[in-house]
């Protein structure tokens, strides 16, 4: 059915339903047909092979927390999964669902961007893999076509000389919609920053990488001054809105605070 879909209004894949169903109930509108893929065993599971971590689309947030290997290969994703919504939601919400809902506040997306993840999209005519960076094209829009199913997410196992962090700033600890979500990844090589990825949630139309902030760090020896400059660049690149949770002004300030804090913590953990 998904393969025959012409528009997103015809058919939508349903994961755990913790976002889509709630949205449909609140708005009174939704796709004509839902295809539940959340219970397909073949889409659920975590494999680590050849330096790559691959998780099936129907893998739940709780699955990430329960797999002891994840702390080694995606500590930052575990950090995020741990503060993702609440226990009941974690048990049923899927990783792919969190990506496909397209929310700028989706909590698993910043760490996946920081890890350099790609997603696999399959349709009747074949399969393609696209980087998660660039996957989103705007507010709740993406490169995924209506006839494509997101089947897997994968990323390279991080090298030993790397560190990553995630922080979710919410109005409360449990079941909160993120005001600002920040994830950073840094690897060092010969005393300078090699790979730097800085992902920002809830401060733009979609979760985004701050390439300007990353460029500030890349190839440079880390210092407090450099980190502050990177945080400034990330702040400048963010375009948050005012809503009932927080003002855009506060969100911008917090990008500065959190990028600076997470980069500092990551680099300290490497020294």
């Amino acid at each position, binding site marked *: 059915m998904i393969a025959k879909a012409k528009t997103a209004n015809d058919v939508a894949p349903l994961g755990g339903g913790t976002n889509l169903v*709630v949205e449909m109930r*609140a708005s009174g509108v939704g796709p004509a047909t839902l295809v539940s893929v959340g219970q397909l065993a073949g889409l659920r599971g975590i494999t680590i092979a050849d330096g790559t971590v691959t998780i099936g689309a129907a893998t739940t947030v709780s699955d990430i927390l329960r797999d002891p290997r994840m702390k080694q290969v995606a500590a930052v994703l575990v950090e995020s999964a741990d503060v993702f919504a*609440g226990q009941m939601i974690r048990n049923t919400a899927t990783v792919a669902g969190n990506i496909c809902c397209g929310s700028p506040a989706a909590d698993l997306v910043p760490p996946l961007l920081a890890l350099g993840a790609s997603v696999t999209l399959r349709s009747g005519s074949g399969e393609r893999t696209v980087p998660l960076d660039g996957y989103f094209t705007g507010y709740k829009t993406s490169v995924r076509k209506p006839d494509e199913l997101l089947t897997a997410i994968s990323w390279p196992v991080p090298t030993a000389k790397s560190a990553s962090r995630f922080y979710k*700033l919410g*109005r*409360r*600890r*449990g*079941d*909160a*919609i993120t*005001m600002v979500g920040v994830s950073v990844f840094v690897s060092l090589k010969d005393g300078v920053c090699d790979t730097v990825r800085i992902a920002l949630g809830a401060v733009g139309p979609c979760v985004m990488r701050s390439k300007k902030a990353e460029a500030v760090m890349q190839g440079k020896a880390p210092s407090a001054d450099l980190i502050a400059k990177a945080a400034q660049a990330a702040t400048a690149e963010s375009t948050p809105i005012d809503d*009932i949770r*927080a*003002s855009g002004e*506060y969100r911008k*300030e*917090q990008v500065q*605070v*959190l990028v600076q*804090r997470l980069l500092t913590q990551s680099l300290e953990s490497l020294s």
Partner: protein
Amino acid sequence: MNKLDEPTVAEQNVNFRQIGKPRTRTDAPGKVFGKTPYAGDYVMPDMLHARVLRAKVPSARMTRLDVSKARALPGVASVLTFRDLKIGTVATDIPGQTGFKRRATDQQILVDELVRYQGEPIAIVAAETVEIAQHALSLIEVDLEPVPGVYNVFDAQKPDSPKVFGTDNLVASYKVRKGDVEVGFAAADVIVENTFTTQYIEHAFLEPEVGLGWEDEQGVINIRSSTQAVETFRYIADAMGLPHSKVRIRGALVGGGFGGKCDVTVELYIALLTKATGRPVRLGFTREDSFYGHGKRHPFIITHKTGFTRDGKITASKIDITSESGPYAFMSPYVLMYATEAGPGPYLVDHVHIDSRSIATNNMYTSAFRGFGATQACIAYEQQMDEAAKVLGIDRIELRRRNLLKTGDAIATGFKVQSAVWTEECMDRAMAALGEKPKDKGPIKYGHGLAAYQQGYGRMIWLHDTAEGWVGVEMDGTVLVRSGMTDIGAGQTSSLAQIAGELLGIDMMDITVYNSDSSTTPLAGTSSASRGLYMSGNAVRLAAEAVRDRLAARAAQHFGSTADDVDFANAQVFLKSDPRKTMPFKELVATCASEGIHRAELAIFRAPFGDWIDPETGQGQVHPDYTYGAHAVQVAVDTETGEVTILKSIGAHDIGQAVNMAAVEGQIEGGVAQGHGYALSEELIYKDGCLVTPSLSEYLCPTSMDSPRIESIVLESRSGLGPFGAKGIGEPGHTPAAPAVANAVADAIGTRVFDFPLTPEKIARAVRTARKAG
């Protein structure tokens, strides 16, 4: 439930066999094993389902209402609008619970011309299924022409503002004039003035409003509903032009009330549709209905101007209080009275001057909420005490200590408190339990805060409050209790079983309690105002004592002793002077039955009755008595992000006498969690009268992940007016929690956010502003 490290159980408890002990409640097994039906679980054959059509705008004139398409929809049994109502209004005063003449505060049942708040009901529908009823709502054609509204209390008080209530938007106002405030300020070395504001909040009970109604063979409209007040049957009957005897409310165990189920909610719609269709009708509010369909907690603006001598003695207290009532009165006049009475807090102030008013707007109407205005008052006076301590350079606890009321001192209204006032001990115990403040770590700063309070329990004495209770012993020695009191989840019925059990020597778990039926259980008034145990507990105590006296007299005859030597325990009757002389309770009861000795009693308990306080001076008695205590909190604040983590939260209260220690701790813990949310995250935001936070993902109650371990320190002065010296604790446990959090946050960040709730954004901004100011 948290267990105390060192529970404080009064020595007096050794005299009791059940009272004061941490017992499993009688309602616990049914709830734990899923056997307890709530109001929403009841169904009947041939039952219809109802829905309510609500106005989407807050201020409008209805120019057209056409329900013909909805009525024509197959499966729709009835669509009612204002045109179908015999009487268009229903009372919103304290619903039908006392003989006191009700105030002229009626509300339209369904919009007849003007919409005064967003969500005001326009039509009600009963249909074969919920889906058909919902579909029918969409077929109702309504034209609402916007009318200028007023959305804040400042604009509402201007002469040219739109008028929502009366000719001046003034719903109620009071004055308190104790001593001479100018004399007091003249004697002051330091004067501290601050304004504090609080927000609209939601009760957010787990169980939204729900009920099922049917007409019985006597023509009585029966309604099984989730309510704090079965006495609403009177107002429902009045609104339908029926005799009071023809409406019967049967409660069920309630999934939370907090004041939000004191007013008439679903019951009147159910009654009207049942009458119209002749069929049973069920109406269950969705969560959205609940947000739009019952009164909220009042936002308050409170300004304190307080005079102090250099050594910290309060010389004068001038307080200005404004509350927002929304378009209808409901409980606003009474809530304002509580806030006014509580104005200066648990402190002895000779010169008090209070002006208070409740102002109508087109925002959501407001009504009862746990603490009833005394809570907002506490948020103001306790933050003011901390601000004053800072100005005076005196330790915050010490400043309070120098001003605390003691037994026999006159409160703001001049009434001299007769019961124990153990505020000081509660403060000291709570602070001691906090322990040392951790050392700050970078941007993470730690803070300690305390709030003391005074909270009335029982109704205002001019409402002439009474409660009835019935206790009877079956021929086989089993005991029954009947009380109209509703059980809203705090262990109300269990406490009645415990009281009757204590007096008759029968274990509470072996006692059957019938409650919450306006026709067959003796009326006891609402479970609100911290009056349940005080009023119904006393009624049941009186009834059990009367039964016990008659049984004891017969037992004395048997033993050849005197009645006062007879005691009852463990289903046995025995002599205190010679416990070997014993007989089974059931044997004594059988003897009494065969001899026609009355084994049952209907008792009435009357609270102290009195007149209104003086309208010019505000002097007189408001409440029968007061509960005192203090709450202490330790927080960690991230001064960069503004996030607050509550690390410790400790309530210390003199509750007079615990009946069920476990239930008392439960009351305190629940009230404290609600106070945490009040201080930090909960807020109903209305934008030009429209609710922008109508769901539990936007309206932020604390979750289990936000809640720290809550400790209860329970002191028992045994000086209250409740059974065995109990005082009320349902509201008091909640009252000081929020200001204690606010004081802890201010202690951590070195400055204060004066407007509730203390969101991360406001805190981060306050820190930054203070830094800039140096």
